[in-house]
């Protein structure tokens, strides 16, 4: 899967699952501060990522993510890209 495709799907998840305004989503945006995703929202997003991309994201790797771009990096890495 190419990076732009992963980015597009991640944005869709943020809009559909967490109700975030798509215009506020940039690759540099942080989940907790810029997008105001709470801790439960982060967990919801992780589960949605795992389902959508068929990957497993351990807690310690999830904790290292703070921006949308970093989440894309992690998914890319998990998919072997």
């Amino acid at each position, binding site marked *: 899967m190419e990076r732009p495709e992963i980015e597009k799907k991640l944005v869709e998840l943020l809009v559909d*699952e967490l109700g975030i305004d798509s215009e506020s989503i940039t690759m540099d945006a942080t989940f907790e501060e810029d997008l105001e995703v709470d801790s*439960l929202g982060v967990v919801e997003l992780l589960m949605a990522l795992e389902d959508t991309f068929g990957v497993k994201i351990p807690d310690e790797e999830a904790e290292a993510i703070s921006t949308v771009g970093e989440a894309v990096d992690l998914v890319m890495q998990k998919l072997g890209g």
Partner: protein
Amino acid sequence: MSRVALVTGAGRGIGRAIAGNLAGLGHRVAVNDLTADAAAATVAAVEAAGGEAVAAGADVTDEAAVAKMFEEVADRLGPVEILVNNAGITRDNLVLRMSPDDWDAVLNTNLRAVYLCTRAALRSMLKARWGRIVSISSVSGLRGNAGQANYAAAKAGLIGFTKTVAKEVGSRNVTVNAVAPGFIETEMTAELPASVREALLPAISLGRFGTPQDVASAVGYLASDSASYITGQVIVVDGGLAL
């Protein structure tokens, strides 16, 4: 509004009454029980009363079986919106004589299963921004009861679990509560010796054991839209027990 409810341990006793009551309120009910015949009997009783129910057999202490059950219920009725954690067993003995097997069996069925089913149910509830979780505790968990160290520990643990999960998911409009029955007329309390039953009655303000319907009514209320601002609570249904 008709919703999808799953009641664990609904093959008999309080669980059967809860399933019947929820169906009577217009909900579509998945009837879980470890014993397929018992679940089928509750489904038949619900259908005879004009309600909608399906059997959902599974060992609720088994993580994979719980996941499979929730998938099957979602396929047949839709995602679970109301979860009632009712399945429970007793293995009574004074603690000095209580075996680790009896401890583990009671903690697994009465507490581990609550965690497994709640976790499995929450995902679709969070997404839907609506959910009701009601777990059946016991006055044993609130007051202690000689001979029930395992059961009381599990039923008290369930209350801590309930209050915690209520805090975790409250922002998503999911409420999590417990109902703590006192002495209710079921097969479980029918095993009490007549002398014990007689001795208990004067301690019950209402002067009688409760009925499964008394408990089911409280559960039905907590599962309704009317109870949308109640979470993390324990409703005691014990007829005014003063032990």
